[in-house]
């Protein structure tokens, strides 16, 4: 392996606690390690922090402009020639607008295309409903062949991006927007695809969370611990393939499951967990996430709280199951 382009201290500083920038930093290392890696931008050079890659590997970068359908089709075509494309895009546009290209050209044709999707959820809160992506997990996880990953912080985003070097198929990597995501968990922990990470032990309730809600779940667990309530926290960073064993074990051992995500309650992580438990091991559940509504405009933090995506909401869901 070549020397890394960045030391961990350097790329963490450059990622500014934003997963979208950690993706760009990881691409720099991927570019050095894998000569077949190419980056496709949809006028998103700063959004995903890929200017260092462009400077270093100019011949392996293609800008496709504000044309997401074409960006996905081009990525598929590049992949058929043996290259490993990384598409950098806005989550709301690259999923909803390009859904047919993702389905046919990437998933159905089973091409090795990684989609780095920034600005997911309501991370661009002030941009309004046109720029929120609250259905992307439902769309992406319904596609055969697709791997779906939701990193919780910059460490996980960086390592998950590197992990795509070993995934021979389509990947959807869900990233945040211009909002800091505080570090959660061990920054040196390896990323293991499809394996949940237990952040807190507990046998009274289990919170199964992804993305920005993982840190909130950890805080909720810490709050309830003071009352003697043991809340297990699982960071399920891989939505597909789902870690069935960890989820079934949590259900068996706690008998109470709370899911937490920045996504519509329909079709996301909560839906995936409910599908599994409903068939294998019916368990009482509460789901924390975006209700069936378009979010209003506002800064991301207050918006999350308004729509029930907060540590307090997770605490309340745990209490409801314990009542």
């Amino acid at each position, binding site marked *: 392996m070549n020397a890394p382009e960045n030391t961990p201290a350097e790329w963490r500083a450059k990622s500014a606690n934003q997963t979208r920038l950690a993706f760009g930093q990881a691409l720099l290392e991927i570019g050095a390690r894998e000569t077949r890696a*190419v980056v496709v931008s949809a006028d998103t050079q700063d959004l995903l922090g890929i200017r260092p890659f462009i400077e270093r590997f100019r*011949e*392996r970068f*293609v800008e*496709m*402009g504000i*044309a997401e*359908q*074409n960006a*996905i*089709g*081009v*990525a*598929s*075509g*590049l*992949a*058929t*020639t*043996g*290259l490993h*494309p990384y598409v950098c895009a806005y989550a709301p546009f690259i999923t909803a607008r390009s859904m*047919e*290209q993702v389905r*046919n*050209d990437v998933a*159905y*044709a*089973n091409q090795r295309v990684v989609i780095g999707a920034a600005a997911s959820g309501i991370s661009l809160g002030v941009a309004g409903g046109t720029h929120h992506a609250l259905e992307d997990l439902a769309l992406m996880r319904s596609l055969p062949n697709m791997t779906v990953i939701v990193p919780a912080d910059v460490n996980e985003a960086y390592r998950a991006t590197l992990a795509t070097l070993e995934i021979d198929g389509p990947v959807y990597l869900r990233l945040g927007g211009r909002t800091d995501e505080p570090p959660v968990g061990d920054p040196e922990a390896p990323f293991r695809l499809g394996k949940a990470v237990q952040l807190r032990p507990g046998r009274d309730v289990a919170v199964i969370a992804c993305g920005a809600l993982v840190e909130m779940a950890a805080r909720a667990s810490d709050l309830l611990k003071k009352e003697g309530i043991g809340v297990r926290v699982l960071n399920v960073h891989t939505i597909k393939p789902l870690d069935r064993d960890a989820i079934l074990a949590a259900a068996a051992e706690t008998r109470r499951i709370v899911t937490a995500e920045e996504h519509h309650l329909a079709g996301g992580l909560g839906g995936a967990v409910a599908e599994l438990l409903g068939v294998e091991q019916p368990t009482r559940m509460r789901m924390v996430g975006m209700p069936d509504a378009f979010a209003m405009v506002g800064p991301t933090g207050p918006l999350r709280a308004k729509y029930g995506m907060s540590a307090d909401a997770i605490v309340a869901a745990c209490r409801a199951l314990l009542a």
Partner: protein
Amino acid sequence: MSETRETLVKRLETQARQVRRNIWRAIRAGGGGHVGGSSSAADILAALYFHRMRIRPAEPDWPERDRFVLSKGHANAALGAVLAQAGFIDDAVLDKFYAFESPFGMHPDIKVAGVEMCTGALGHGLPVATGMALGARIQKKAFHTFVMIGDGELHEGSNWEAAMAAAHYKLSNLTAIIDFNKICQSGRVDEVISVDPLADKWRAFGWEVREIDGHNMQDVVDTLDMLPLNPDRPTTLIAHTVKGKGVSFAEDTYLWHSNSVNDEIYAKALAELGLP
């Protein structure tokens, strides 16, 4: 023994006639299908697969091969015919059109030898072909990428996203062939949504444009042999064609965009197409 220009054209005309017979044969086996758009494409496909493209049917994944993407995937009967005649797939597959678990369905499937992409949802081929041409450029490979697009298919906006990008990157290793048979599913394209002025549109997007008679083998071969037409631009060949070409009752009518074919109709079609 080297082939003269005259014998080349004669050979390709015979092979194109065989392609049309195989199109009808497959569609008869399936009980019906897209006769019109498959038959309009037959001469160009014959010229590509039996003359212009550098391919190795015994080694379908040969990295240096020229690429062909059938964006108008509903003409898969024609693609299946040339793939069988070229030796990519077994001839018997043509009798399994639409059959249970057949590799040969209404639309191309990348899992089949010689098929480069799953197409048929319209407006996908040009972006994918643009990616293939860029892939050649990035890896300094010499292969050429061809994509055949229907005229009605040009209603799909994704074509024009790719048209802009391919011209921006000066992809002279990319050729888009428009099968301009003037008819889509509901009727004449100029009555559904006009694509005129078609050549001007492509020129305005930065492509080198040539209009050809898509059923004149001499014209088709001469043009394909001149590619790239411009070292700094991708090429558009606007091939004027006749939907359902080769069988009088199927020609130039939207009723034969897709239609059912029974034994009686099949016999009439073969009689008109003549001996292989």
